């Protein structure tokens, strides 16, 4: 197993782990955490596999295009997290709940 | 020399793991807080070692950013921990 494949596997393990937590947990803040871990896993797969094509100026550096896309993804993820948190706080103010789903709701 | 730096980085990573154990088991919130603060320091040291071992001087900038933003994390942490009042203990467990 080479290093890029190793890190891609770790990233996919993170994605699956976070997907499980996303489905199982009801608290919305926990779901936000799970989504963040999941996006980190995707980024890890991306950057890990990008190392199969070394960059030119720094011999060991990864392909710059996936790096730029992951950079964009990180900033979008934090913006989405901020919006999600604002919505959760609003839900809490309006209904007193921090979970979705009407079958288990109060 | 590179070998030594890498070995030191692995060693510091292991101490980081030990710190996580303290965060998990630390009896009081102050213990956890102190251990969390130590992560920043250790991680900065690991980054500086990696900067030499991997011949990537730009990693020093990452250590600089970490040093600055660790302060933000600690402030956010202290601002969100309940201030203990006489009638109500900071029951973290």
């Amino acid at each position, binding site marked *: 197993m080479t290093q890029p494949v190793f890190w891609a596997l770790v990233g996919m*393990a993170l994605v*699956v782990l976070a997907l499980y937590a996303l489905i199982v947990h009801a608290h919305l803040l926990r779901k936000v955490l799970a989504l963040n871990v999941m996006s980190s896993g995707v980024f890890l797969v991306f950057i890990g596999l990008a190392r199969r094509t*070394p960059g030119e100026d720094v011999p060991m550096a*990864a392909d710059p295009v996936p790096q730029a896309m992951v950079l964009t993804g990180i900033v*979008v993820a934090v913006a989405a997290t901020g919006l999600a948190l604002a919505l959760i706080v609003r839900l809490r103010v309006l209904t007193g709940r921090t979970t979705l789903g009407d079958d288990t709701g109060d | 020399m590179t070998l030594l730096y890498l070995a030191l980085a692995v060693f510091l990573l292991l101490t980081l793991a030990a710190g996580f154990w303290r965060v998990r088991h630390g009896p009081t919130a102050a213990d956890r807080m102190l251990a969390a603060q130590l992560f920043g320091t250790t991680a900065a040291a690991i980054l500086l070692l990696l900067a030499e071992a991997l011949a990537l001087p730009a990693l020093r900038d990452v250590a600089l950013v970490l040093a600055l933003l660790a302060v933000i994390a600690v402030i956010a942490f*202290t601002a969100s921990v309940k201030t203990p009042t006489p009638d109500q203990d900071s029951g973290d467990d």
Partner: protein
Amino acid sequence: MMLRPRTDRQAGPASSARADKGLPPAARALLVLALLAVFAGLVLAVLSLSEPAPGLAAAVDERIDESGVSHPVTAVLLNFRGYDTLLELVVLVLAVMGAWSVGRARGCAGNVPGPLLRQLPRLMAPLMVLVAGYLLWVGAHAPGGAFQAGSLLGGVGILLCLSGYPLPGWANGPALRVSAVLGVAVFAALGVVAALLPGGAPLDWPPAQAKTLILTIELAAMLSIGVVLAALFAGGRP
């Protein structure tokens, strides 16, 4: 009021049961099996990839001299794939619009800042702004750039918010809104100007002016990213 939960763990048996045991054991086992199958499929997919992969590193390296900057990641972000970055700045503005439309900002954190915390911005904020400027500048030829510098500026905003630093009144007015959209506005305006040049196309920088244009856009983008992150932290419209 005293007994209301702070976290889901302290929320008493009923609520924590709802948080943790929403699924019956059988469904949970099925879910684990399904996820293991997904993982196995992903592993097979990755193991079947060829190891020296054809990537875009060579293509970037070939055209880097025309991009105006010498750091490949910055060249990709601000020149080769400019649309990505432009639309990402739009996403940031949309996020802050969404957060502002659900409610007003109501303070930053629980505790009233003590004297130490109130003085901290005087020490930290200038340092962080300085490092942000450094990262922006160094991004032209080494790792760094608008995103990293902007998130440091966001950190400055969070620091000011948490320490209760008294901001001047204009900082919460139109200035805040203008700087939140400044990145998109400057990027799009310069992109349109580039299209109007003879032989130009949208977001296609002429090599001679590319470095100036990229640094201008990055400066505006850094401001916008910082302001948006700080506004998201404040949690609502001012």
